[in-house]
């Protein structure tokens, strides 16, 4: 390398365009970015901000359907824009490496981890296969993976999500690159797993003095990782500052709004006067085949309140929803609505029960039929449950759209593909409301959304509850969401309820140890948070 200066990456006036409907639309609109050797830059913004596109550009790479339309990208003084494909290929994986959001999807399912690890060093001629495999074990150890000698010989599906994400970081380190692009590496992980991955990534990046671009939408996470933070919105830079400065004194309104999102709280709501729960589960066990996923679940939901069910993936939260909906018959125990035992299978329940209990799913994308216009999406439950037709149905569809704050004239004839993520989730809410239910299960309804959009959905759900006296069972892994909307909190772990109570009671110490672990794993907007938690845990043994 001829360039001895401290400057590793120098991006000037970069324009990247994406093809949409036959024309090229700008995705990144003239951004400058510099990075010194060993420095970590955090890129934050909502989806569509151009974070990933900008990150990939540092590798001279544009996703298919995108092109680098202008500007300059210099890596250690070498221009990447317009460089021959072979030059760029030799640089990728060797000098600049990439860590993807979902390690489970980014590892090839057909090969063992260590074979995928050694691919880049061997093919780029950095090491022999034997050397690479020895080196892999060393890096697996540095990444604090269990059984570093052996774990590489497993297939991706045999390794947990958090471990895979660390194995992917190790793979990115294989050629000891100058720069690693981390593209939302912990977004898909549970909070308790995220903390381990964050700690391991930070350690290895610091020890090898590797520069990094850390892309995330989670401010509290980026605060732990980055030296500097750059905020993006719709392909433009909003502001950039040193991390502490940015957290303490954001200059721009947009940045401030990002900071403020987590502050939505509503007052606890009292149960209705009857004092009788709307839904009760008694001693419910459920399993998939021989695998037991619910073990002795007892809970009762008060009418007009929101019960939040929290827990990590695999804790049985979604199975709980399936049992209540009658999609998975329980092995034993009963589900009662207003004191009446429900049939274990939805198709044996009468229409009235089916109408009264509705569900909203996590992925609004896949929950809507892509060929149905909004009129049809909302019209079908009106017809099916309430027998509405013609003008009455049309009027009710318009009313529902108004309720979810979408303009009927604009949206009624649209297809799901013509809506944003937040709008799709609103339509799913309207579809549930169309049946005029009393009880709605919300299964991670905000998890796939940006924080600002998610907050809008939470406020909408809250308003509807107030106006219509709805009862919610809110399944989530996000404690911030629980804090903002729950009246009653149920904490689940490995198919059991480990703690439940009124929100204030659960969030006040003393906690159940698992609740404590969950609460302490939620990143805070404080650059010292990760160190503090790790120290506390080390001290506690």
């Amino acid at each position, binding site marked *: 390398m001829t360039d001895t200066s401290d400057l590793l990456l120098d991006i000037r006036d970069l324009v990247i365009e994406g093809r949409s409907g036959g024309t090229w639309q700008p995705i990144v609109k003239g951004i400058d970015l510099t990075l010194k050797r060993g420095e970590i830059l955090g890129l934050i913004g909502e989806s569509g901000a151009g974070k990933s596109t900008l990150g990939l550009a540092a590798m001279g790479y544009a996703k298919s359907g995108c092109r680098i339309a202008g500007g300059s990208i210099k890596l250690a003084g070498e221009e990447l824009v317009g460089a021959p494909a072979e030059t760029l290929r030799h640089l990728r994986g060797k000098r600049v490496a990439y860590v*993807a959001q979902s390690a489970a999807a980014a590892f090839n399912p057909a090969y063992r981890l260590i074979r995928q690890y050694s691919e880049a060093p061997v093919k780029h001629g950095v090491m022999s296969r034997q050397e690479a495999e020895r080196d892999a074990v060393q890096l697996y150890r540095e990444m604090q993976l269990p059984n570093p000698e052996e774990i590489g010989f497993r297939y991706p599906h045999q390794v947990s999500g958090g471990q895979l994400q660390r194995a992917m970081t190790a793979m990115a380190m294989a050629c000891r690159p100058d720069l690693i692009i981390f593209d939302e590496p912990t977004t898909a992980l549970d909070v308790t797993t995220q903390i381990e991955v964050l700690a391991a990534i930070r350690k290895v990046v610091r020890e090898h003095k590797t520069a990094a671009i850390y892309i995330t939408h989670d401010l509290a996470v980026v605060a732990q990782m980055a030296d500097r933070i750059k905020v993006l919105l719709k392909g433009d830079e909003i502001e950039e500052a040193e991390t502490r400065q940015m957290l303490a004194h954001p200059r721009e309104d947009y940045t401030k709004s990002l900071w403020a999102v987590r502050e939505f709280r509503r007052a606890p709501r009292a149960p209705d006067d009857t004092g009788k729960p709307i839904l009760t589960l008694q001693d419910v066990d459920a399993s998939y085949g021989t695998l037991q996923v619910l073990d002795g679940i007892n809970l009762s939901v008060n009418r007009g309140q929101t019960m939040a069910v929290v827990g990590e993936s695999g804790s049985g939260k979604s199975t709980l929803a399936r049992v209540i909906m009658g999609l998975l018959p329980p092995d034993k125990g009963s589900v009662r609505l207003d004191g009446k035992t429900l049939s274990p299978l939805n198709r044996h329940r009468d229409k009235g029960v089916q109408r009264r209990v509705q569900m909203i799913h996590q992925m609004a994308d896949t929950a809507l039929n892509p060929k149905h216009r909004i009129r049809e999406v909302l019209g079908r439950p009106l017809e099916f449950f309430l027998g509405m037709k013609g003008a009455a149905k049309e009027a009710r569809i318009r009313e529902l759209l108004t309720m979810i704050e979408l303009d009927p004239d604009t949206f009624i004839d649209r297809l799901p593909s013509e809506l944003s993520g937040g709008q799709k989730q609103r339509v799913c809410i309207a579809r549930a409301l169309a049946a005029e239910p009393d009880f709605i299960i919300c299964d991670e309804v905000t998890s796939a959304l940006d924080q600002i959009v998610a907050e809008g959905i939470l406020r909408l759900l809250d308003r509807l509850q107030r106006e219509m006296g709805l009862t919610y069972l809110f399944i989530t892994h996000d404690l911030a969401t629980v804090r903002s909307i729950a009246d009653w909190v149920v904490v689940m772990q490995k198919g059991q309820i480990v703690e439940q109570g009124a929100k204030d009671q659960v969030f006040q110490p003393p906690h159940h140890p698992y609740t404590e672990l969950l609460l302490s794993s939620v990143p805070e907007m404080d650059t010292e948070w990760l160190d503090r938690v790790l120290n506390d845990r080390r001290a506690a043994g």
Partner: protein
Amino acid sequence: MSPILKITLSRLAMGILTLVIVSVLIFSAIELLPGDIATETLGQSATEETIAAFRERFNLNGPVHMRYFEWLASAVQGDFGVSLSNQRPISELIAQRAGNTFFLAAYAALIAVPIAIVLGMLAALYRNSAFDKAVSGATLAAISFPEFFVAYILVLLFSVTFGWFPSLANVDAGTGFVERLYRTFLPALTLTLIVVAHMMRMTRAAIINLLALPYVEMAHLKGMRRWRVIAIHALPNAIAPIINVVALNLAYLVVGVVLVEVVFVYPGLGQLLVDAVSNRDVPVVQAACLIFAATYILLNIAADILSIIANPRLLHPR
């Protein structure tokens, strides 16, 4: 028991069950024929004694289910009875014919499968390029013509015009291996042209389906060559749908070659079947059908099992 063994055994059991059902259907065919087979075959003038002797000889007495089990038991041991038309044992008649058919099928498969998969990978690599369009167009054209037409064009070109290959694929037990390859080249080429398109297009589609997946993008971001990304990262994960289409086409190579055999006067099962049908030689038809059905079923089981093995989740459980 490992899940893979379990699945393999259950598929085999299903295959055998299917074969039994097919054998019942094939056997019933003879019962469903109008009239009495003995009088039909021997004609109106036959005497009581000759008819009784015929019935005895072809085992036409006794209840249907008993005769079915006797027929099946002998068939399993390779004894399909004797031909109605020339009184020779059917197993003898069929053995050489079946050998010829399987030889031609294997010959065509060894040319067609590698060509189809490599062309499919190249088409996926250079998708939407002139090369891709040319390959798709050419293979589609080949599959669109009737097979006898393709066969006659090849004969016209390679036998009549250039005189490189014989137009008749007449082989017998004494023909040497190399000579056999030479004489059956044109029928093998005809079959190749007919089956390549389907397999090639499935390979192309299965690979292109995977190209947008994160692990394929990851391979690019690790700086791997484009060909390596297709061959090493995409193909192994696309193998299941490809295997299934290959199996269907292999089955076609055995079962669907009647026209090609007729054109090249090749002594295969297809020819035998055509002759037997025109002579109303029912036991021969039954035997040939059973072999065709078994081929179909076995190839499909093999495809099923191979695509299961290609799935690392099943091969290496947690």
